[in-house]
């Protein structure tokens, strides 16, 4: 196996074009996407809303009325949860925002005080939050806003003008309510507290940069590894595979040798990509080094196994090239390599789970953007490892069926 690995490494290094394509092409694409998306997430922009978590800590008629109101909005998928669970889901990037109706919501409403409602959101998905915010506010104030303002004006008039004629009081109140409602929600907006779950960090990486580096690196890695995988078919076509099979080797060790090489190159390629992003774009790699190394190892394993799988599923090199181009482009498109996932409709975001790119990119977001601890990134690492194991098992089976079938 090691001998095979060393042989492939030697051949790879002798092919300067392959070496250049493996490293320079992804660097060029990272540069391109980084320039395109580099400022994304640092400034407010518009997007669309899909899902909202809601934690009702007040459990009052008023808070339930808000829930009913929000649930009736077609464009919104509402999920009720407790605040800790909701916070974790938003921090993991599973939901864009969590609306918390704190205890005292109804009392504040009746007392005419500011509403204790808070929207915790993922800054990475602030475009979705931008759409969520007016929806929430409109529902909060369509039911109770007018009542709240009336209460405040009445209190003010009673305090400052206790002897005011009741008819005049009614006229003032109606005019004020009419003006306030017509004026829109400037004042109302301030009633909803907005807080990013990421908070303020000095080591903050731009999510656009993370997207550019992780998205491109994984997509290009898939292409590189698919090329390496198809060298299996090249061995078959040139007759070297037959010669390998008459040597005292098992068929599986030939496959493992190829996988080891693909795995090695994948790790090196990812490391080079991240180092490049560090040197040129200032990506902070030191936020969670153990998690980063594990994530690189898991991504490289999943991607290299996938590349070998693409070769094993094919019967000729041409077939492998066509198939891998098609599958990699589709997977990269749905998995978020080409377009950030939050630009996509929710169904597409669900479909993304079926791509290696998704798990890799989200894992790198967890590290570089969400700043999650290793323990919380482990599930994504486990999924990537699972994909790698599954692809390896399929590859072994297909390798025997398609590639070892020599005559």
């Amino acid at each position: 196996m090691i001998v095979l690995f060393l042989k492939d490494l030697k051949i790879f290094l002798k092919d300067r074009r392959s070496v250049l394509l493996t490293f320079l092409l992804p660097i060029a694409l990272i540069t391109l996407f980084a320039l395109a998306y580099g400022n994304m997430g640092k400034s407010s922009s518009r997007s669309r809303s899909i899902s909202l978590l809601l934690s009702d800590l007040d459990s009052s008629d008023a808070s339930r009325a808000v829930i009913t109101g929000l649930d009736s909005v077609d464009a919104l998928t509402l999920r009720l949860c407790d605040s800790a669970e909701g916070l974790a889901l938003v921090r993991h990037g599973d939901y864009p925002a969590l609306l918390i109706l704190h205890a005292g919501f109804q009392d504040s409403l009746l007392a005419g005080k500011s509403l204790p409602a808070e929207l915790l959101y993922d800054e990475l998905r602030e475009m979705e939050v931008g759409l969520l915010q007016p929806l929430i506010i409109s529902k909060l104030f369509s039911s109770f806003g007018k009542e709240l303002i009336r209460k405040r004006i009445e209190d003010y008039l009673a305090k400052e003008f206790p002897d005011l004629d009741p008819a005049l009081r009614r006229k003032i109140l109606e005019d004020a309510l009419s003006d306030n409602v017509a004026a829109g929600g400037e004042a109302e907006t301030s009633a909803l507290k907005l807080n990013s779950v990421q908070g303020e960090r000095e080591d903050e990486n731009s999510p656009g940069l993370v997207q550019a580096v992780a998205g491109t690196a994984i997509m290009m890695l898939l292409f590189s590894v698919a090329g390496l995988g198809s060298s299996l078919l090249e061995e078959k076509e040139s007759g070297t595979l037959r010669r390998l099979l008459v040597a005292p080797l098992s068929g599986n060790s030939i496959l493992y040798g190829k996988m080891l090489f693909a795995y090695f190159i994948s790790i090196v390629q990812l490391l080079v990509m991240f180092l490049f992003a560090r040197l040129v774009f200032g990506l902070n790699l030191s936020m969670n080094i153990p998690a980063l190394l594990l994530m690189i190892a898991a991504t490289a394993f999943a991607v290299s196994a996938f590349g070998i799988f693409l070769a094993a599923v094919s019967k000729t090199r041409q077939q492998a090239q066509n198939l891998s181009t098609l599958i990699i482009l589709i997977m990269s498109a749905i998995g978020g390599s080409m377009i950030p996932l939050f630009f996509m409709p929710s169904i597409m975001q669900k479909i993304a789970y079926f791509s290696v790119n998704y798990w890799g990119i989200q894992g790198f977001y967890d590290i570089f953007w969400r700043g999650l601890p290793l323990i919380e990134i482990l599930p994504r690492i486990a999924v990537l490892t699972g994909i790698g194991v599954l692809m390896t098992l399929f590859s072994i089976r297909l390798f025997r069926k398609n590639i070892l079938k020599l005559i």
Partner: protein
Amino acid sequence: MITVENISKSFGEIHALQDVSFHIRRGEIFGLLGPNGAGKSTSIHILSTLLRPDSGEVLFDGKPLYSDVQGVKMKIGVVPQEIALYEKLSALDNLLFWGGLYRMPRARLRNKAAEVLELVGLSGRARDPVSEYSGGMKRRVNLACALLHDPQLLLMDEPTVGVDPQSRNHVFEVIEALHAAGKTIVYTTHYMEEAERLCERIAIIDRGRIAAIGSLEELRKISGITDILRIRLAPSQRALLPQIAESLKALRVDEQKGELEIECQNIGKELPQIIAAVQKAGGQIESIESERAHLESIFLKLTGTALRD
């Protein structure tokens, strides 16, 4: 050393081998002679453990071939029909890689690589990429790769296909040197000259069946052709060729040259009768030559098809 007993192998509707049996003696060069598609490569694939026969048995040193596949692989070297080399690597790197698969100690492998490069006459180009070699040089490296682990048995599947005469001679010399060193060699070819020059015993194979096995002399006896008589008629009488060929049951007729070839079992006894038959038909003989029967004629006689078809 190798005993093949009644093996058959089919690929779908194609019967590549049908009830094939032969025995290979230790230290001999055993030829498998037949046209393309005769079953030579399938036989080599079975002997090299790449394929298993559908029925029948192969014994290696008296033991079933598949009872210890890895052990057998260590004892055999295979020279495949295709040039199975990594073209971007040098000859030396190829040798070190292929030899490394046999778990040879590094120092011994390096010495052996230098030795086989010397044997095939490529020491001076050892570090050049194989892609820069001529077809003949590649063939020689292809052969050298099978020698590194000092196998007892060498399986050579048409090792000179597409090779220039000079390289072909070099390959022959290497094979003769290996034979002299006591190696057992199975050599497949569709070139009768190669089989005649190299092989001590030859199995004639056609359409998956063995037609005959033996030394060239034994094959002559089996086929009933020991000598070939070549009669050339005077140019004015070439119209008589078909009639004379039919009456003498000629092996081959060349109307352009005005020649016919007649098989003989005992040329001294048969020659007067043949001359008389030609004259009786009105033919005037311009020249008569005789030669020992060659493999092509024997193959034609035994299989009914010409070797180069």
